[in-house]
């Protein structure tokens, strides 16, 4: 049994890390997108934002001006509903102009409520229906092995998404093919649309499950950029095992009054007052 040498403490175990200015700025842009479109999966985006930020800031190799560069690292946001966070980061990295952000879900925009391959530079696969990203990621990783390319594949899945059996089919396949170039990041905020994951369909013991499926498993505070960097930089740990990082997160992280509030899983018809509340909440966090 191989485990990453990450120490889980009371402080970092539940996604309670403080947010630095970059994390706050990214969230502020998400709120500005919300102001423009008046809809979106806010809670889910705030949950996954540090995972994406660390991947694109510190870990992945890519060229935003040549998004199909063959040696690039691939990232699939399999929990496609968290796309507000992805779009903000892709725009920040120059994959497309920032002006696209203000056309989220609008007829003349390229950014829909779920990411689409072929429409959005930097999006590797169309997601939205859950449980599709990991099997596709297995295909990407197998291709790297076949072509003897060094690129890595990162697949971000949600905890509600983990209910889908296709993830576990793909996990068996990834372990069988010894895809050490594949890393699954689980955005584990313990909430899905209807209720907590414990109440709807308990995933525990989640670490043991991934380990039993043949992965090297680490646990981190999914809002702690340094912890995420450390965990990701240590992968691959084993030359013959795929990697899973269980990221303990908080749904709605960064605005206290919406944290763990399922009303903010997805929100439409967001009012001016709610925008002010979000901005103030973020400011005070």
């Amino acid at each position, binding site marked *: 049994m191989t485990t990453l040498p990450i120490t889980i403490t009371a402080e970092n175990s539940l996604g309670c890390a403080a947010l630095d200015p970059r994390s706050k700025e990214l969230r502020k842009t998400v709120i500005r997108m919300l102001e423009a479109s008046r809809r979106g999966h806010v809670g889910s985006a705030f949950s996954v934002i540090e995972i994406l930020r660390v991947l694109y800031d510190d870990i992945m190799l890519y060229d935003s001006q040549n998004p199909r560069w063959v040696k690039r690292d691939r990232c699939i946001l399999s929990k496609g509903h968290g796309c507000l966070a992805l779009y903000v980061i892709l725009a920040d990295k120059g994959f497309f102009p920032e002006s696209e952000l203000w056309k989220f879900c609008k007829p003349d925009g390229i950014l829909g409520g779920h990411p689409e*391959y*072929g429409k959005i530079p930097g999006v*590797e*696969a*169309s997601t939205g*229906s859950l*449980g*599709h990203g*990991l*099997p*596709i*990621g*297995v*295909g*990407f*990783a*197998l*291709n790297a*092995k*076949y*072509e003897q390319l060094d690129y890595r594949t990162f697949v971000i899945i949600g905890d509600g998404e983990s209910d889908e*059996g*296709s993830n576990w*089919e*793909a996990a*068996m*396949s990834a372990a069988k093919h010894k895809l050490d170039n594949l890393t699954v990041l689980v955005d584990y905020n313990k909430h899905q649309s209807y209720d907590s994951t414990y109440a709807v369909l308990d995933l525990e013991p989640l670490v043991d499950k991934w380990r039993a499926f043949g992965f090297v498993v680490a646990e981190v505070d999914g809002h702690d950029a340094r912890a995420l960097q450390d965990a990701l930089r240590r992968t691959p740990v084993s030359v013959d095992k795929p990697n899973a990082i269980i990221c303990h997160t908080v749904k709605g992280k960064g605005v206290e009054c919406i944290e763990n509030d399922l009303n903010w899983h997805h929100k439409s018809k967001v009012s001016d007052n709610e925008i002010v509340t979000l901005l103030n909440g973020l400011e005070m966090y």
Partner: protein
Amino acid sequence: MRKTCLDMVYNLAKTDKRIFFIGSDLGFGTLKAFKEEMPDRFFMEGVSEANVIGMAAGLALEGKIVYVNTIATFITRRCFEQIILDLCLHNVKVRLIGNGGGLVYAPLGPTHLAIEDIAIMRACPNMTIIAPADVDEMRRLMPLTVDHDGPVYIRLGKGFDPIVTTDNVPFEIGKAIPMRSGDDALMVSTGICLKIVLKAADQLQARGISAGVLHVPTIKPVDAETILDGVARVRAVVTVEEHSIIGGLGSAIAELIAETNFDSAKQFKRVGIPDVFPDKYGSQDSLMRHYDISSESVVSVILKLLDA
């Protein structure tokens, strides 16, 4: 037909390194030579159709051409969402080879009967659907599947079906093949039902009725031009397929006819499996006869239409 098809995948893969093969849990020894000679392009992934299709999509997004094979029911129904999203939405070169389309697995019961596969594949944008009539046609079409754009569903018959096609005209994906001309009626078939309608044409000729035969190996995209040209020439049209009458070849032809203004009225009938789960076992042939998918039944239907 299955062996010919898979042997062709093997032969194509030998000269084209873009070609990969993924099976689910196929029979022992399937494509043994492929596995031995090209192990890095051969995968047997177990009974995990959702993963198999997603994995194929991932490889295809990286420029590979992936042939996937399992029983037609499981390759179409079990992983339908992966097909429509991972394959069709991404419009990737994955070729689904479905064993036993139609009533082939009659002895195994309704869980194994792929009688709605064409209907559900037809509903997927970007999908191409091909149902060859015999192994000779399979040999002609397989090389064309390599570089064809987008996903393809290849519906296999039972095998050892009589050779009824010819190489008089080159196979072209998306083209219907007029097999016989006729002035009174037109029979349109796909897959192995071609043998039934050719026999029916002989039986009708013996009765002094001139019936044409149009073979439609590509059900999607359907060759509207050739089909409507054939329909325009006759009074009665019958479609014959080893598939539910809902959503298959008959529906495709009915849609074309309904949206076309002909100079003269047309009589039309679909011959196929009614909207039921077959409740008998036996053989493919016995179930076909049970549902009146036979040359005699087709003759009878045409006689009635011409009398109308």
